[in-house]
Protein backbone atom coordinates (compact mmCIF):
# COMPACT_ATOMS: atom_id res chain seq x y z
CA UNK A 1 0.00 0.00 0.00
CA UNK A 2 1.17 3.46 -0.85
CA UNK A 3 2.75 5.19 2.15
CA UNK A 4 0.98 8.22 3.31
CA UNK A 5 2.38 11.56 4.17
CA UNK A 6 0.24 12.30 7.13
CA UNK A 7 -1.59 15.53 7.10
CA UNK A 8 -0.52 17.33 10.27
CA UNK A 9 -4.00 18.77 10.49
CA UNK A 10 -5.33 15.42 11.56
CA UNK A 11 -2.72 14.94 14.26
CA UNK A 12 -3.25 18.48 15.47
CA UNK A 13 -6.92 17.85 15.46
CA UNK A 14 -6.48 14.86 17.71
CA UNK A 15 -4.09 16.68 20.00
CA UNK A 16 -6.48 19.56 20.25
CA UNK A 17 -9.18 17.12 21.10
CA UNK A 18 -6.99 15.49 23.69
CA UNK A 19 -6.04 18.76 25.31
CA UNK A 20 -9.68 19.46 25.90
CA UNK A 21 -10.91 16.23 27.37
CA UNK A 22 -11.53 16.07 31.00
CA UNK A 23 -8.55 15.06 33.09
CA UNK A 24 -10.54 12.20 34.53
CA UNK A 25 -11.27 10.86 31.07
CA UNK A 26 -8.97 8.33 29.63
CA UNK A 27 -6.84 9.71 26.83
CA UNK A 28 -5.24 6.37 26.01
CA UNK A 29 -7.25 5.88 22.89
CA UNK A 30 -6.30 9.23 21.45
CA UNK A 31 -2.69 8.75 22.42
CA UNK A 32 -2.78 5.50 20.52
CA UNK A 33 -4.18 7.14 17.40
CA UNK A 34 -1.66 9.94 17.50
CA UNK A 35 1.19 7.51 17.94
CA UNK A 36 -0.09 5.34 15.14
CA UNK A 37 -0.42 8.29 12.77
CA UNK A 38 2.98 9.63 13.66
CA UNK A 39 4.51 6.27 12.90
CA UNK A 40 2.78 6.14 9.56
CA UNK A 41 4.01 9.65 8.96
CA UNK A 42 7.56 8.56 9.50
CA UNK A 43 7.09 5.90 6.86
CA UNK A 44 6.84 3.02 9.26
CA UNK A 45 4.66 0.25 8.04
CA UNK A 46 2.18 -0.71 10.68
CA UNK A 47 0.56 -4.05 10.39
CA UNK A 48 -2.56 -4.12 12.42
CA UNK A 49 -4.07 -7.46 13.27
CA UNK A 50 -7.06 -6.32 15.21
CA UNK A 51 -9.81 -5.76 12.63
CA UNK A 52 -11.36 -3.03 14.72
CA UNK A 53 -8.17 -1.02 14.81
CA UNK A 54 -7.44 -1.73 11.20
CA UNK A 55 -10.81 -0.23 10.44
CA UNK A 56 -9.92 2.90 12.35
CA UNK A 57 -6.68 3.22 10.47
CA UNK A 58 -8.60 3.07 7.24
CA UNK A 59 -10.90 5.83 8.44
CA UNK A 60 -7.97 8.09 9.19
CA UNK A 61 -6.29 7.23 5.95
CA UNK A 62 -9.38 8.18 4.05
CA UNK A 63 -9.64 11.51 5.80
CA UNK A 64 -6.05 12.26 4.99
CA UNK A 65 -5.87 10.85 1.52
CA UNK A 66 -9.00 12.70 0.45
CA UNK A 67 -7.73 15.84 2.18
CA UNK A 68 -10.89 16.11 4.18
CA UNK A 69 -11.14 18.82 6.74
CA UNK A 70 -10.95 17.00 10.05
CA UNK A 71 -13.27 19.64 11.46
CA UNK A 72 -15.87 19.15 8.87
CA UNK A 73 -16.41 15.68 7.45
CA UNK A 74 -19.27 15.17 5.08
CA UNK A 75 -20.51 11.97 6.62
CA UNK A 76 -22.58 10.80 3.68
CA UNK A 77 -19.65 11.08 1.34
CA UNK A 78 -17.30 9.66 3.86
CA UNK A 79 -19.50 6.63 4.50
CA UNK A 80 -19.70 5.83 0.81
CA UNK A 81 -15.94 5.96 0.43
CA UNK A 82 -15.48 4.07 3.64
CA UNK A 83 -17.79 1.20 2.79
CA UNK A 84 -15.99 0.87 -0.54
CA UNK A 85 -12.62 0.72 1.17
CA UNK A 86 -13.88 -1.65 3.80
CA UNK A 87 -15.08 -4.01 1.08
CA UNK A 88 -11.72 -3.85 -0.64
CA UNK A 89 -9.93 -4.53 2.63
CA UNK A 90 -12.40 -7.33 3.39
CA UNK A 91 -13.41 -5.86 6.70
CA UNK A 92 -16.77 -7.13 7.74
CA UNK A 93 -19.41 -4.53 7.22
CA UNK A 94 -20.85 -4.62 10.70
CA UNK A 95 -17.50 -3.57 12.10
CA UNK A 96 -17.23 -1.03 9.31
CA UNK A 97 -20.59 0.43 10.25
CA UNK A 98 -19.52 0.74 13.85
CA UNK A 99 -16.34 2.42 12.74
CA UNK A 100 -18.13 4.97 10.66
CA UNK A 101 -20.16 5.89 13.65
CA UNK A 102 -17.07 6.06 15.76
CA UNK A 103 -15.02 7.94 13.21
CA UNK A 104 -17.84 10.34 12.97
CA UNK A 105 -17.93 10.73 16.68
CA UNK A 106 -14.23 11.32 16.85
CA UNK A 107 -14.04 13.63 13.93
CA UNK A 108 -17.26 15.51 14.12
CA UNK A 109 -19.54 14.95 17.03
CA UNK A 110 -16.88 15.29 19.66
CA UNK A 111 -15.39 18.31 18.01
CA UNK A 112 -18.85 19.87 18.02
CA UNK A 113 -19.06 19.25 21.72
CA UNK A 114 -15.65 20.75 22.13
CA UNK A 115 -16.71 23.72 20.12
CA UNK A 116 -19.50 24.24 22.56
CA UNK A 117 -17.10 24.21 25.45
CA UNK A 118 -14.71 26.52 23.66
CA UNK A 119 -17.63 28.74 22.86
CA UNK A 120 -18.58 28.92 26.49
CA UNK A 121 -15.05 29.87 27.41
CA UNK A 122 -14.88 32.48 24.73
CA UNK A 123 -18.20 33.99 25.63
CA UNK A 124 -16.96 34.36 29.17
CA UNK A 125 -13.76 35.86 27.94
CA UNK A 126 -15.65 38.28 25.76
CA UNK A 127 -17.69 39.61 28.60
CA UNK A 128 -14.60 39.90 30.70
CA UNK A 129 -12.53 41.87 28.26
CA UNK A 130 -15.26 43.77 26.55
CA UNK A 131 -13.87 47.19 27.44
CA UNK A 132 -10.50 46.53 25.98
CA UNK A 133 -11.64 44.71 22.88
CA UNK A 134 -12.77 47.04 20.14
CA UNK A 135 -9.54 48.46 18.82
CA UNK A 136 -6.92 46.12 20.10
CA UNK A 137 -8.27 42.76 19.16
CA UNK A 138 -9.39 43.14 15.65
CA UNK A 139 -8.53 46.58 14.36
CA UNK A 140 -4.86 46.24 14.89
CA UNK A 141 -3.65 49.40 13.24
CA UNK A 142 -4.75 52.80 12.00
CA UNK A 143 -5.35 51.61 8.48
CA UNK A 144 -7.69 48.85 9.60
CA UNK A 145 -9.50 51.26 11.80
CA UNK A 146 -9.87 54.03 9.19
CA UNK A 147 -10.92 51.63 6.47
CA UNK A 148 -13.61 50.06 8.61
CA UNK A 149 -14.87 53.42 9.78
CA UNK A 150 -14.97 54.86 6.28
CA UNK A 151 -16.83 51.85 4.92
CA UNK A 152 -19.47 52.19 7.61
CA UNK A 153 -19.89 55.91 6.96
CA UNK A 154 -19.61 56.02 3.18
CA UNK A 155 -22.92 56.22 1.33
CA UNK A 156 -21.66 53.83 -1.36
CA UNK A 157 -19.62 50.66 -1.10
CA UNK A 158 -16.21 50.61 -2.78
CA UNK A 159 -17.23 47.55 -4.78
CA UNK A 160 -19.55 47.77 -7.72
CA UNK A 161 -21.02 45.10 -9.91
CA UNK A 162 -19.79 45.57 -13.45
CA UNK A 163 -22.28 45.27 -16.29
CA UNK A 164 -21.52 42.39 -18.62
CA UNK A 165 -23.39 40.88 -21.50
CA UNK A 166 -25.58 37.91 -20.96
CA UNK A 167 -24.79 36.51 -24.33
CA UNK A 168 -26.46 33.37 -25.51
CA UNK A 169 -25.91 31.74 -28.83
CA UNK A 170 -28.05 29.45 -30.85
CA UNK A 171 -27.90 25.71 -30.35
CA UNK A 172 -26.02 23.96 -33.10
CA UNK A 173 -27.16 20.94 -35.03
CA UNK A 174 -24.36 18.86 -33.60
CA UNK A 175 -25.57 19.75 -30.12
CA UNK A 176 -29.10 18.79 -31.08
CA UNK A 177 -27.91 15.43 -32.37
CA UNK A 178 -25.83 14.81 -29.32
CA UNK A 179 -28.85 15.64 -27.18
CA UNK A 180 -30.94 13.23 -29.22
CA UNK A 181 -28.42 10.48 -28.78
CA UNK A 182 -28.40 11.00 -25.01
CA UNK A 183 -32.15 11.36 -24.82
CA UNK A 184 -32.58 8.04 -26.58
CA UNK A 185 -30.26 6.23 -24.21
CA UNK A 186 -31.81 7.86 -21.17
CA UNK A 187 -35.28 7.13 -22.42
CA UNK A 188 -34.41 3.48 -22.90
CA UNK A 189 -33.02 3.35 -19.37
CA UNK A 190 -36.02 5.18 -18.01
CA UNK A 191 -38.44 2.80 -19.69
CA UNK A 192 -36.44 -0.20 -18.59
CA UNK A 193 -36.52 1.00 -14.99
CA UNK A 194 -40.24 1.78 -15.25
CA UNK A 195 -40.82 -1.74 -16.57
CA UNK A 196 -38.80 -3.22 -13.71
CA UNK A 197 -40.69 -1.12 -11.20
CA UNK A 198 -43.93 -2.26 -12.72
CA UNK A 199 -42.91 -5.92 -12.58
CA UNK A 200 -41.74 -5.52 -9.01
CA UNK A 201 -45.03 -3.92 -8.00
CA UNK A 202 -46.94 -6.74 -9.69
CA UNK A 203 -44.76 -9.37 -8.01
CA UNK A 204 -45.33 -7.81 -4.60
CA UNK A 205 -49.05 -7.57 -5.23
CA UNK A 206 -49.30 -11.27 -6.09
CA UNK A 207 -47.06 -12.21 -3.20
CA UNK A 208 -49.01 -10.21 -0.67
CA UNK A 209 -52.24 -11.78 -1.91
CA UNK A 210 -50.76 -15.20 -1.53
CA UNK A 211 -49.40 -14.38 1.91
CA UNK A 212 -52.72 -12.99 2.90
CA UNK A 213 -54.51 -16.10 1.76
CA UNK A 214 -52.12 -18.35 3.64
CA UNK A 215 -52.40 -16.28 6.77
CA UNK A 216 -56.09 -16.23 6.42
CA UNK A 217 -56.23 -19.97 6.01
CA UNK A 218 -54.10 -20.40 9.05
CA UNK A 219 -55.98 -17.95 11.20
CA UNK A 220 -59.49 -18.80 10.38
CA UNK A 221 -61.16 -21.14 12.66
CA UNK A 222 -64.55 -22.50 11.86
CA UNK A 223 -65.82 -21.75 15.35
CA UNK A 224 -64.77 -18.11 15.25
CA UNK A 225 -66.47 -17.60 11.90
CA UNK A 226 -69.60 -19.26 13.13
CA UNK A 227 -69.67 -17.10 16.27
CA UNK A 228 -69.33 -13.87 14.32
CA UNK A 229 -71.98 -14.94 11.86
CA UNK A 230 -74.31 -15.58 14.77
CA UNK A 231 -73.58 -12.13 16.19
CA UNK A 232 -74.38 -10.47 12.88
CA UNK A 233 -77.51 -12.47 12.58
CA UNK A 234 -78.64 -11.67 16.12
CA UNK A 235 -78.20 -7.93 15.60
CA UNK A 236 -81.07 -8.33 13.17
CA UNK A 237 -80.15 -5.38 10.94
CA UNK A 238 -79.48 -5.04 7.24
CA UNK A 239 -76.27 -3.10 7.91
CA UNK A 240 -74.02 -3.22 10.95
CA UNK A 241 -70.65 -1.74 11.74
CA UNK A 242 -67.67 -3.82 12.78
CA UNK A 243 -67.69 -1.83 16.03
CA UNK A 244 -70.94 -3.62 16.88
CA UNK A 245 -69.22 -6.98 16.66
CA UNK A 246 -66.16 -6.62 18.82
CA UNK A 247 -64.08 -4.41 21.04
CA UNK A 248 -61.91 -2.76 18.39
CA UNK A 249 -59.39 -1.71 21.00
CA UNK A 250 -58.58 -5.30 21.69
CA UNK A 251 -56.14 -6.00 18.90
CA UNK A 252 -56.47 -9.80 18.91
CA UNK A 253 -60.20 -9.74 19.05
CA UNK A 254 -60.37 -7.17 16.28
CA UNK A 255 -58.14 -9.17 13.95
CA UNK A 256 -60.07 -12.35 14.67
CA UNK A 257 -63.35 -10.59 13.92
CA UNK A 258 -61.99 -8.96 10.77
CA UNK A 259 -60.74 -12.27 9.42
CA UNK A 260 -64.05 -13.95 10.13
CA UNK A 261 -65.84 -11.07 8.43
CA UNK A 262 -63.63 -11.45 5.38
CA UNK A 263 -64.29 -15.14 5.32
CA UNK A 264 -68.06 -14.57 5.49
CA UNK A 265 -67.73 -12.07 2.66
CA UNK A 266 -65.77 -14.65 0.70
CA UNK A 267 -68.69 -17.00 1.24
CA UNK A 268 -71.08 -14.31 -0.04
CA UNK A 269 -72.99 -14.28 3.24
CA UNK A 270 -72.19 -10.63 3.79
CA UNK A 271 -70.83 -7.61 1.90
CA UNK A 272 -68.03 -5.54 3.41
CA UNK A 273 -67.37 -1.93 2.48
CA UNK A 274 -66.07 1.42 3.60
CA UNK A 275 -67.49 4.82 2.71
CA UNK A 276 -64.13 6.47 3.24
CA UNK A 277 -60.97 4.67 2.23
CA UNK A 278 -58.70 3.68 3.96
CA UNK A 279 -59.55 4.88 7.47
CA UNK A 280 -63.33 4.99 7.32
CA UNK A 281 -65.71 2.79 9.31
CA UNK A 282 -66.07 -0.77 8.13
CA UNK A 283 -69.69 -1.64 7.31
CA UNK A 284 -71.16 -5.10 6.97
CA UNK A 285 -74.29 -5.78 4.99
CA UNK A 286 -76.13 -8.97 5.81
CA UNK A 287 -77.07 -10.46 2.45
CA UNK A 288 -79.64 -12.81 3.97
CA UNK A 289 -81.52 -10.06 5.83
CA UNK A 290 -85.04 -9.45 4.62
Amino acid at each position, binding site marked *: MEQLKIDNDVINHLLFHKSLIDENDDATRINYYVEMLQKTNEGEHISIENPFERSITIAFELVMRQHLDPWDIDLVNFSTMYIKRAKEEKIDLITAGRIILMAWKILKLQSDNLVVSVEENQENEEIFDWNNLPTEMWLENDQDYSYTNLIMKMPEPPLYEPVRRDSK*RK*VTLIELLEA*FNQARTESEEYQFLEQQRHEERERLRIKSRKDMKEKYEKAKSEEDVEAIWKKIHNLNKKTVSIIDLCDTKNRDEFIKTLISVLFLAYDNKIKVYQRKFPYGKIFIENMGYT
Partner: protein
Amino acid sequence: MGKNEKRRVESVLFSASEPVRIKDIRESTGFSIKIVKDTLKELMDDYSINRKNDTSMEIVKAGEKYIMQLKKNYTDQSMIVSKPEIKDDILKTLSLIAFHQPVKQSNLRRMAGQKIYDHVDELVSMKIVNTRKHGSTELLTTTKLFPEYFGIESTKPEEIRDYLAKKVMGDISKSIKSD
Protein backbone atom coordinates in the same frame (compact mmCIF):
# COMPACT_ATOMS: atom_id res chain seq x y z
CA MET B 1 -24.10 63.74 -32.02
CA GLY B 2 -21.65 64.24 -29.22
CA LYS B 3 -19.40 61.53 -27.89
CA ASN B 4 -21.39 61.29 -24.71
CA GLU B 5 -24.61 60.38 -26.54
CA LYS B 6 -22.81 57.76 -28.57
CA ARG B 7 -21.22 56.18 -25.53
CA ARG B 8 -24.46 56.02 -23.63
CA VAL B 9 -26.46 54.49 -26.47
CA GLU B 10 -23.60 52.07 -27.11
CA SER B 11 -23.59 51.03 -23.48
CA VAL B 12 -27.30 50.20 -23.65
CA LEU B 13 -26.79 48.07 -26.76
CA PHE B 14 -23.82 46.29 -25.23
CA SER B 15 -25.49 45.40 -21.97
CA ALA B 16 -28.88 44.45 -23.40
CA SER B 17 -27.44 41.35 -25.15
CA GLU B 18 -30.63 41.16 -27.23
CA PRO B 19 -32.41 43.41 -29.71
CA VAL B 20 -33.78 46.61 -28.11
CA ARG B 21 -36.37 49.10 -29.28
CA ILE B 22 -35.71 52.81 -29.73
CA LYS B 23 -38.21 53.34 -26.94
CA ASP B 24 -36.10 51.21 -24.56
CA ILE B 25 -33.00 53.21 -25.36
CA ARG B 26 -34.87 56.47 -24.85
CA GLU B 27 -36.11 55.28 -21.48
CA SER B 28 -32.75 54.26 -20.13
CA THR B 29 -30.78 57.23 -21.49
CA GLY B 30 -33.38 59.96 -21.20
CA PHE B 31 -32.57 61.17 -24.75
CA SER B 32 -35.28 62.21 -27.20
CA ILE B 33 -36.40 59.81 -29.93
CA LYS B 34 -34.61 61.96 -32.52
CA ILE B 35 -31.32 61.95 -30.64
CA VAL B 36 -31.54 58.17 -30.14
CA LYS B 37 -32.21 57.62 -33.86
CA ASP B 38 -29.43 59.92 -35.02
CA THR B 39 -26.99 58.44 -32.55
CA LEU B 40 -27.84 54.92 -33.63
CA LYS B 41 -27.21 55.88 -37.27
CA GLU B 42 -23.82 57.32 -36.41
CA LEU B 43 -22.89 54.35 -34.26
CA MET B 44 -23.81 51.92 -37.02
CA ASP B 45 -21.57 53.85 -39.41
CA ASP B 46 -18.74 53.97 -36.90
CA TYR B 47 -18.78 50.22 -36.40
CA SER B 48 -19.30 49.23 -40.03
CA ILE B 49 -17.60 51.97 -42.04
CA ASN B 50 -15.36 54.40 -40.15
CA ARG B 51 -13.83 51.83 -37.86
CA LYS B 52 -14.60 48.81 -40.01
CA ASN B 53 -11.28 47.07 -39.40
CA ASP B 54 -10.92 48.17 -35.81
CA THR B 55 -13.75 46.22 -34.33
CA SER B 56 -15.18 42.73 -34.56
CA MET B 57 -18.62 43.96 -33.55
CA GLU B 58 -21.36 45.69 -35.47
CA ILE B 59 -24.62 47.41 -34.66
CA VAL B 60 -27.48 46.38 -36.89
CA LYS B 61 -31.17 46.97 -37.26
CA ALA B 62 -33.15 43.77 -36.76
CA GLY B 63 -36.75 44.41 -37.65
CA GLU B 64 -37.77 47.37 -35.51
CA LYS B 65 -35.02 46.73 -33.04
CA TYR B 66 -31.30 47.29 -32.78
CA ILE B 67 -28.61 44.94 -31.62
CA MET B 68 -24.89 44.86 -31.10
CA GLN B 69 -23.47 41.60 -32.38
CA LEU B 70 -20.37 40.00 -33.83
CA LYS B 71 -19.60 40.56 -37.48
CA LYS B 72 -20.23 37.41 -39.42
CA ASN B 73 -16.59 36.47 -40.01
CA TYR B 74 -15.89 36.42 -36.27
CA THR B 75 -18.79 34.27 -35.13
CA ASP B 76 -17.00 30.94 -35.43
CA GLN B 77 -14.45 31.37 -32.70
CA SER B 78 -16.97 32.55 -30.17
CA MET B 79 -18.64 29.14 -30.14
CA ILE B 80 -16.62 27.67 -27.33
CA VAL B 81 -17.12 30.49 -24.87
CA SER B 82 -20.76 31.37 -25.42
CA LYS B 83 -23.56 29.39 -23.94
CA PRO B 84 -26.33 27.84 -26.01
CA GLU B 85 -29.74 29.37 -25.46
CA ILE B 86 -31.51 26.03 -24.98
CA LYS B 87 -30.40 24.05 -21.98
CA ASP B 88 -29.19 20.45 -22.45
CA ASP B 89 -32.17 18.81 -20.81
CA ILE B 90 -34.70 20.76 -22.82
CA LEU B 91 -32.79 20.09 -25.99
CA LYS B 92 -33.04 16.36 -25.32
CA THR B 93 -36.79 16.61 -25.02
CA LEU B 94 -36.91 18.66 -28.23
CA SER B 95 -34.97 15.99 -30.07
CA LEU B 96 -37.37 13.31 -28.88
CA ILE B 97 -40.32 15.35 -30.11
CA ALA B 98 -38.64 15.98 -33.45
CA PHE B 99 -37.96 12.29 -33.90
CA HIS B 100 -41.27 10.88 -32.74
CA GLN B 101 -43.56 13.61 -34.05
CA PRO B 102 -46.49 13.81 -34.00
CA VAL B 103 -46.16 12.49 -30.47
CA LYS B 104 -48.68 12.43 -27.64
CA GLN B 105 -47.51 14.30 -24.57
CA SER B 106 -48.46 11.26 -22.50
CA ASN B 107 -46.21 9.03 -24.60
CA LEU B 108 -43.39 11.50 -24.26
CA ARG B 109 -43.86 11.37 -20.50
CA ARG B 110 -43.54 7.61 -20.67
CA MET B 111 -40.27 7.97 -22.56
CA ALA B 112 -38.61 10.53 -20.36
CA GLY B 113 -40.63 11.13 -17.23
CA GLN B 114 -42.48 13.99 -15.55
CA LYS B 115 -39.91 16.67 -16.34
CA ILE B 116 -41.06 16.84 -19.96
CA TYR B 117 -44.09 18.94 -18.98
CA ASP B 118 -41.90 21.90 -18.05
CA HIS B 119 -39.75 21.36 -21.09
CA VAL B 120 -42.74 21.33 -23.43
CA ASP B 121 -43.99 24.58 -21.89
CA GLU B 122 -40.65 26.21 -22.54
CA LEU B 123 -40.36 24.85 -26.09
CA VAL B 124 -43.87 26.04 -26.89
CA SER B 125 -43.05 29.51 -25.56
CA MET B 126 -40.01 29.51 -27.84
CA LYS B 127 -42.40 28.72 -30.69
CA ILE B 128 -40.26 25.77 -31.73
CA VAL B 129 -42.84 23.19 -30.68
CA ASN B 130 -46.53 23.24 -31.39
CA THR B 131 -49.18 21.60 -29.29
CA ARG B 132 -52.75 20.73 -30.15
CA LYS B 133 -55.43 18.96 -28.18
CA HIS B 134 -55.95 15.32 -28.99
CA GLY B 135 -58.50 13.68 -26.79
CA SER B 136 -57.33 14.09 -23.22
CA THR B 137 -53.70 14.68 -24.11
CA GLU B 138 -51.69 17.04 -26.29
CA LEU B 139 -50.22 16.14 -29.62
CA LEU B 140 -46.76 17.64 -30.12
CA THR B 141 -45.00 18.57 -33.34
CA THR B 142 -42.10 20.83 -34.22
CA THR B 143 -42.92 24.13 -35.91
CA LYS B 144 -41.57 25.72 -39.05
CA LEU B 145 -38.97 27.36 -36.83
CA PHE B 146 -37.34 24.00 -36.10
CA PRO B 147 -35.77 23.29 -39.51
CA GLU B 148 -34.96 26.98 -39.85
CA TYR B 149 -33.22 27.03 -36.52
CA PHE B 150 -31.06 23.99 -37.16
CA GLY B 151 -30.54 24.59 -40.83
CA ILE B 152 -32.31 21.39 -41.80
CA GLU B 153 -33.67 21.65 -45.29
CA SER B 154 -36.71 19.53 -44.91
CA THR B 155 -39.89 20.74 -43.22
CA LYS B 156 -41.77 17.44 -43.31
CA PRO B 157 -41.89 15.48 -40.03
CA GLU B 158 -40.95 12.17 -41.69
CA GLU B 159 -37.97 13.73 -43.37
CA ILE B 160 -36.82 15.41 -40.14
CA ARG B 161 -37.16 12.05 -38.46
CA ASP B 162 -35.11 10.32 -41.14
CA TYR B 163 -32.55 13.06 -40.98
CA LEU B 164 -32.11 12.72 -37.19
CA ALA B 165 -32.04 8.94 -37.35
CA LYS B 166 -29.47 8.91 -40.12
CA LYS B 167 -27.27 11.47 -38.35
CA VAL B 168 -27.36 9.69 -35.02
CA MET B 169 -26.92 6.21 -36.46
CA GLY B 170 -24.11 7.60 -38.57
CA ASP B 171 -22.42 8.95 -35.45
CA ILE B 172 -22.85 5.67 -33.66
CA SER B 173 -21.42 3.61 -36.48
CA LYS B 174 -18.55 6.07 -36.71
CA SER B 175 -17.77 5.75 -33.03
CA ILE B 176 -18.01 1.99 -33.22
CA LYS B 177 -15.60 1.97 -36.12
CA SER B 178 -13.13 4.21 -34.33
CA ASP B 179 -13.12 2.00 -31.25
